[in-house]
């Protein structure tokens, strides 16, 4: 740990939230995953469960 610190001096110091907010691609992943799962996929599952009329 201690000797590695000199290679990436400040990487370790940056708080988690800041690293998250500074990474547009993780944010992109979260922003697409959230509505896809909670809105689209869940919604489609509900529609798929509607019985077909005879």
């Amino acid at each position: 740990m201690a000797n590695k610190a000199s290679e990436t001096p400040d990487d370790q110091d940056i708080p988690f939230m800041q690293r998250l907010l500074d990474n547009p691609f993780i944010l992109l992943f979260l922003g697409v995953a959230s509505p896809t799962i909670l809105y689209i996929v869940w919604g489609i599952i509900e529609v798929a469960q509607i019985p077909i009329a005879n």
Partner: protein
Amino acid sequence: MASAANFRTCPDTGLKVDRTAEALIKANAVVAVVFLAVGGLFGVLVAMTRWPAVHLLDADMFYLVLTAHGADVLLFWILFFEVAILYFASAILLNSRLATPKFAWLAFIMMVVGAVMANVAVLQGDSTVMFTSYVPMKAEPHFYLGLIIFAVGALIALFVFFATLVVAKNEKTYEGSVPLVTFGAITAAIIAVFTIASGAVILIPTWLWSMGFIANIDTLLYKIIWWGMGHSSQQINVAAHVAVWYCIAAMVLGAKPLSEKVSRTAFLLYILFLQLASAHHLLVEPGVSSEWKIFNTSYAMYLAVLGSMIHGLSVPGAIEAAQRRRGFTHGIFEWLRKAPWGNPAFSGMFMSLVMFGFLGGISGVVMGTEQINLIIHNTLYVPGHFHATVVAGTTLTFMAVTYLVVPLIFRREIILPGMAKWQPYIFGIGVAGISLFMMGAGTLGVARRHWDITFTDAIMSVEVPGTAFLMMGLNGISALLAGVGGAMYVVIVVGSVLFGKRRDEAVAKANPIIFDGGAAVANYGSEEQVKVPGTIVLVAIFFTAFVLYYFVNWKFLSEVWPLS
């Protein structure tokens, strides 16, 4: 690939400006204004038809024009302008070259071709399906194809934006975190990716169905996925116009956010939750459960509303702090009284903030609640609400920022400054009117998207209260006012771009328009002094109005359905 970018130095800000990015911003902004002009005119025609005493268009024409109005303003005006904002927030604010300019031009051309194709389809008359194009109503194939080409173009523009972020980072054109305005633009772009993906998933099969290659599209499935696009696209607007609020406050007054962390967290709430509210468009659909509806429109949605409330405190707070820093410290509201009300960039932005919150925000939370939604579902209340969000909110904000874009990017002085000063007020008051009066008519039961509120030839007669007619008349008058305000905007913008005095270095020195060279926009940094009593009072008024209106609606619901 490594295109040698060609930069100029901006005399107003000292920032390096990539000339290609600049040309693309101009192109997208110009086309946006053209669609606003066309679509706005259609809006006035629609309102003149819904004014019973005028009843301008015949029924077929009414629905045709309504379809064109929705598509031209909601999709084309706003998305072209947003692409311009994305290029500004990436290449210009980060001092970088724009990545892959050829793709950016390809995106632009595809968006133009798609938008024109969809317009042609609608105006030919066989694609009167409203911009929602619910199946099984069928439009001509080139209507869907136009929308698809437009969407793919917009997707390419998003890639250019994300690639520019990477270029700027690799070429170290900025240090640390991106500026807040860029962060807001990233939020908008992320929501846009989901929006366009949903659009593609549903419109491509619908296009194939319109040509007969697919037999059937499930109507409920269509609505779910279509609203993944239709609703989320409105959230691109919210993220973008909030970013522009911060941008205008910073440019005009040097306002910095009270807390970068808090404002960014509010944008993160948008990224995670805002798009779930798509479900509020399906609140009365049988076939999806109340769990799905309530989770997506209440529990999760309120987290996104929290984000908006944070911005609603943070933007006026930043303005108040900046004004106090400049010495307007008397009493609670001197900062507000002495704000630059004669500057259309500021006045448009501040009115937009107030109307978006009071008219759009409050009505949105009310109608997004499953139970009370029933009172106003599919009435004119709905367009009343979203003209407060997307016209008073987004459109007025974009108009306001144009008063900075024309001098800074087009390098032209604004012509007719006296008229420009009044333009946001006239448009703003008109829009407040159309929002309020449509909401009023909706509360009285007037249906949306309807040519004849009296149902003249219906078998059962319908009683419409006289006040509803009054509301529709007042709506018509407000629409004329908004139309005049919109026309003033188009005249000023087009006139300035073509005939405005060139803004060279000497003019820029003589007539500075942005505070301190825009340092507050282009850098990370929070306000130091965060005592903002005036803003706290405004927020308290807002909450009181909100709570009262919310409970009044529950009371109203109990009267609609007497349970005893």
